[in-house]
């Protein structure tokens, strides 16, 4: 690994992530930096829409690396994640030279030409700086998790017909999880763990201001406060950062300079996706504070 890609210290990490359009908080910066220095994968866990995937993209940008992304889903297997023999092409080949000896053909059809590389193999075989993003790793089956273990600890893949392929260059690995199930202890042990939650007031405000620069300071402050207040409620779907941004854009588009109950009533549907949540939110925002609570 050449030195110019690596993060030199925490300030450097924070500055480069910020330059890549991602505003990190202290835990994020620390873990990102340690992931580089300890050479360990970073497992980012947290609710949907707090910027887990964005972090991986920002790391790639800040290191001038290519991003290889593996989107996980139920039933994802080696063939889709690692490599697959292009057996249709192999069949064609066998049929094309039927008169040749099998020994010759066999050596032919298990060559690189017939190998379809999938994201995991691709990430370790390329000789350029790479960030491997394994997105929503909680969705995969237990068997696949075991396969990931092998790759994440040794950075090598064994293909029976070809031999072992070792990493040309260690990729920076980021795994994200929405915590729909408990990942195995073994996988967690191989990773640095970062629990990412909704950002605090100032950071979310900064995010709104950087992503939607047209929002005046005062409006940004107010809308972030409202969103934060709503996240304290027990909603079916809490507003994520991207929904905050959507709401900010909506308010700017409609030309509102501040939010009152009327504006909230008409635009909350941008922020919340369930009718019952909207009703609850309106009641919450209008209810006279009850000092006996607490």
């Amino acid at each position, binding site marked *: 690994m050449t030195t110019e890609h690596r993060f030199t210290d*925490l300030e450097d990490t924070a500055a480069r992530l910020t330059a890549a359009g991602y505003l990190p908080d*202290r*835990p994020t910066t*620390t*873990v990102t*930096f*340690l992931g580089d*220095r*300890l050479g*360990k994968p970073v*497992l980012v*866990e947290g609710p949907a829409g707090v910027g887990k995937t964005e972090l991986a993209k920002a790391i790639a940008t800040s290191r001038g690396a290519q991003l290889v992304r593996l989107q996980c889903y*139920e039933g994802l297997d080696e063939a889709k994640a690692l490599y697959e023999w292009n*057996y*249709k092409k192999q*069949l064609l080949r066998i049929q094309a030279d039927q008169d040749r000896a099998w020994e010759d053909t066999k050596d032919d059809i298990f060559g690189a030409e017939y190998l379809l590389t999938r994201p995991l193999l691709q990430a370790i075989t390329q000789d350029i700086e790479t960030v491997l993003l394994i997105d929503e790793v909680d969705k995969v*089956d*237990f068997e696949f998790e075991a396969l990931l273990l092998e790759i994440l600890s040794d950075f090598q893949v064994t293909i029976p017909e070809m031999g072992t392929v070792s990493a040309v260059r260690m990729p920076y690995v980021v795994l994200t999880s929405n*915590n*729909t*199930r*408990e990942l195995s*202890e073994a996988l*967690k*042990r191989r*990773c*640095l*763990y*970062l*629990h990412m939650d909704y950002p605090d007031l100032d950071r979310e405000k900064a995010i709104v201001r950087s992503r939607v620069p047209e929002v005046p300071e005062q409006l940004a402050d*107010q809308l972030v*406060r*409202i969103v*934060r*207040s709503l996240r*304290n409620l*027990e909603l*079916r779907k809490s507003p994520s950062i991207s929904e905050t941004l959507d709401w900010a854009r909506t308010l700017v588009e409609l030309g509102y300079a501040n*939010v*009152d*109950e009327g504006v*909230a009533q008409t635009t909350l549907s941008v922020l919340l996706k369930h009718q*019952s949540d909207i009703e*609850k939110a309106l009641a*919450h*925002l*209008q*209810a*006279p*504070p009850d*000092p*006996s609570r*607490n």
Partner: protein
Amino acid sequence: MSTVADGELTGLQQRVLDLVHALRRANVPVAVSDALDAMRASTLIDLLEREQLREALASTMVKSPSHRGAFDLLFDIYFPNRSTQPVAGEAADPDAEPGEAFDGDTHHQEARDIDQFLAELVMRVMQGDEAAMRRLAIEAVENFGAVRGRDGRVNFFAYRVFRNFNLGGLLRRLMTESGMDGDDPQNALTRRLMRDEFEQRLRRFREDIEAEIRRRQVEQQGADEVAKRLARPLPEDLDFFRVSAEEQETMRRQIRPLARKLATRVAVKRRRSRDGRLDVRKTIRHSLSTGGVPADPAFKARKHHRPELVLICDVSGSVAAFARFTLMLTHALQGQFSKVRSFAFIDTVDEVTRLFSGGDFTDAIKRLHTDAKVVWLDGHSDYGHSFEAFHARYAEAITPKTTLLILGDGRNNYRASNAWVLKDLKRRARRLYWLNPEPMQHWGTGDSIADEYARHTDGMIECRNLRQLAEFVERVV
């Protein structure tokens, strides 16, 4: 380079190791490799930045959000914040100053102090001046939190501090002083936001006070001692019988994620248990792409029947917390069952399904005692009468598809058991389980007739914390 292998541990490494041991004692699993990573991480960052060290250690040792609370607590104990330490003189002689606070003759002085103190506190909270608030938290502990023990040593306690002023009162005062005390609907929104902000700042203030008290205790008694005493069970291990309001809140927030995890796990199990019969149509369709060679056989999935669930819960004071969590969990898992019906009782029984079907559990729990008729005579648990009433009114609800769960400790206040109802219900239902939040060795002692009822069930299961509850629910699904 390798500082770990040198044999002799540095002071920092010893501290990290102490923290690892304390975490393990608190049931947070920290593997040896995690501990090694933590040590390597600690060499890479600026040790003077305490928060960086905290995050670095957390990322290597804490692998689950529910363990983070325990970690932060223990981190504060083993790596106390030096910057909040008062001036050296005060720290060196803890008996000198705080002793005066309760010497009787200085009582008048103390009263005036607290008014001045509160005035400043209110001002700082309104300004949101965090540094000043932290200073005030230290002052509050110093002046109001001291208790002299029998051995003449001075100890500091949070409850002493909050006896002098309560945070609810402070919040009201803050709202009044910022002109937000009315209930003018015009600025309801502003008021709500203001209130949220103040609540947040006061919470921070309370945490500062607690941290300061811990710091002083560590100074007096050593880190290991305090860590042992403060260690609380993890949220999933909390005993239903002994949870504070705050812990209940933590547990409540775990219900939905827990339900989601259970649902995923069950779905995976179902998908795996194919019955293995070949799906000929699909296999042939697949084989077209391999020139008619069936290289990729497809199998049929088995159809699963979803159980129907009926819960009968004792919601009287002693077991209320347990009943609540079970109700919330089962209703959060509604999708996994073909039907969920729930009934609550104290000394008579009423159906409460509709309260939970809305999905707003906090509200449902609140209405459990107001909207449902669960009290008949005196509001003391009466299993016998409740079962009889259930049998008379709802026995038809139990069909051979039903899994029936009964929740309670079986403490019947020496009333008639009416165990024949259970016998009959068991005959009607597919399964009948009883979940008992009491430790097994207490069953059948005192007024508990748990063992009599147990004879008529398919199993009476000890269920004292969320972990056991989740294990059971997974089995039933």
